[in-house]
């Protein structure tokens, strides 16, 4: 009994220590983004001046613009490419499917720096000018595996006769895909897209190596600013953390709400 209690106490302390360790720096940063002075260590009073500066600063505005634009485009393209690839794989022979899924897992486990340098060398050897396009291509490339990983399990659970049934009823293969297959794997596509979005938004290493011509995303900008102490970094980071948090909450909450709504609808219909 006593042993159990102390055990529980220790595990609670451990958990709290872990959370503090992980979140304290972030909370600290958020708090100091509202500091009224330039100091990063001494609290002098509340103000939103760093946020005002942030929004009036042209380079920061531009970085935010690139970050969001790249993230949106990369999400859209990687979701489409990833979904189509997953569907194709689910129809192909076992050996081919196994080989491709393993190849697909590789970039996710690779250190970012390896991918980054690989991409940089590839773009250089192709003679592509580094800038917005190279960054976008790189982001699409590293986001796609996450989409495939999320869509594959949904396809595995699909009734193989369903596409045939749709075509039997007069649907072209494309109509069958859009009206029958996609709605059923939509949850997988959704979570794949959200993960792709967060991966793109907070990427630093790969972006840093493949961009050029003054095109910077937020991470690169923060990195270049961190050499000169300036609380606008805190403000910017706070905003990024907020966005990522919101997206992550959505990833976890949306399926729950969906399931609830479905249940409610069914119980309402149960009336007759």
């Amino acid at each position: 009994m006593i042993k159990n209690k102390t055990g529980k106490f220790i595990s609670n302390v451990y958990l709290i220590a872990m959370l503090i360790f992980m979140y304290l720096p972030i909370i600290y940063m958020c708090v100091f983004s509202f500091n009224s002075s330039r100091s990063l260590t001494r609290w002098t009073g509340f103000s939103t001046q760093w946020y005002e500066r942030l929004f009036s600063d042209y380079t920061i505005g531009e970085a935010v613009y690139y970050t969001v634009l790249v993230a949106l485009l990369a999400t859209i393209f990687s979701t489409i490419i990833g979904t189509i690839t997953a569907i194709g794989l689910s129809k192909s022979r076992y050996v081919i499917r196994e080989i491709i899924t393993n190849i697909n897992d590789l970039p996710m486990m690779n250190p970012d720096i390896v991918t980054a340098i690989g991409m940089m060398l590839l773009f250089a050897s192709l003679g592509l000018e580094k800038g917005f396009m190279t960054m976008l291509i790189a982001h699409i490339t590293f986001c796609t595996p996450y989409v495939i990983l999320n869509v594959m399990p949904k396809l595995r659970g699909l009734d193989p006769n369903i596409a045939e049934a749709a075509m039997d009823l007069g649907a072209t293969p494309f109509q069958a895909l859009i009206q029958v297959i996609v709605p059923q794997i939509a949850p997988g596509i959704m979570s794949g897209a959200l993960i792709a979005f967060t991966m793109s938004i907070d990427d630093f290493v790969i972006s840093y190596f493949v961009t050029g011509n003054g095109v910077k995303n937020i991470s690169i900008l923060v990195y270049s600013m961190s050499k000169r102490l300036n609380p606008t970094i805190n403000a910017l980071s706070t905003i990024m953390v907020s966005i990522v948090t919101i997206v992550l909450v959505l990833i976890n909450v949306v399926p729950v709400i969906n399931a609830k709504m479905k249940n409610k609808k069914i119980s309402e219909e149960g009336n007759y």
Partner: protein
Amino acid sequence: MRELIQFRNIVKEFDGQLVLKGINLDICENEFVTLLGPSGCGKTTLLRILGGFIEQTEGEVYFDGIEISNVPPYKREINTVFQRYALFPHMNVFDNIAFGLNIKKENKDVIKQKVTKMLKLVGLEGYENRAVTQMSGGQQQRVAIARALVNEPMVLLLDEPLGALDLKLRKEMQVELKKIQKEVGITFIYVTHDQEEALTMSDKIVVLNEGEIQQIGSATDIYNEPENEFVAKFIGESNIIDGIMLDDYRVVFFDKEFECVDYGFHDNEPVDIVIRPEDIDIVDVEKGMIKGTVKSILFKGVHYEIMVETEHEDLKVHTTDVSEVGKEVGLSFFPEDIHVMSKMAAY
């Protein structure tokens, strides 16, 4: 009647395994054709070739006189009720049934009207908004039937469509399907491994085994004149006895000569004799053509199934008369109850 579908020498191979071994079959307009055969004999495979979902290894399929092997499924005037329903789980009952009409961009009012009519036909009124995943197997099966029928195809393929229903509903749906087929006047190709279902519903029965057609004929043909041992065993119950055909109308089995109605065999040709259990009468020992002892009696509801041990082989008899185990009895039958089949070359 006009021939609508023609299978010409259809061969299908899966990974080197021959599943269909040269199927030749003609199906007429407005005909109710049943493919009957044991599990794994290639029934679904033949339907899938006609539906356009797989391609035959060899042979041709003609639809209305035109070779259709290269026509994609969505351009064929054929609809299918799949063996495992294949309903769209993200749609409710109404949208499932309306799918084909929506694809054809029919008017919304027309769609509503047709779907409502179909729901009534399959006895699912009021279920429009139900999620298909929340329905029983039998209800799902009826949605699948409605979803195919609503498109008014020229040919409807049904792959064991009543498999999940209980006996009562199954009988009702059999009558209902037959009525629909007569009313709408479309060709039904119906797959089942239930011989009773095949016998009650079909204009034409095609008995399949191991990818080969064993016999094509009407229900009475197949039941009364089975062409070989497989058909005789598969359709109904039967006693199959080795015999020798002396010449026309005279056959020998159980070391005795019997009069029969079959002819056209070689003299002294070895044959298989089929006698249906319900065609054998139990009589007094001295009146019997064959003598035996009652070995066992099983009550089957409408009749008793009695096994009679004779000098040669045991014979199965179906009768409503009571008997008792161990009793000496005589067995008797009429010449027309003896069906003679030549020994199959295929065996």
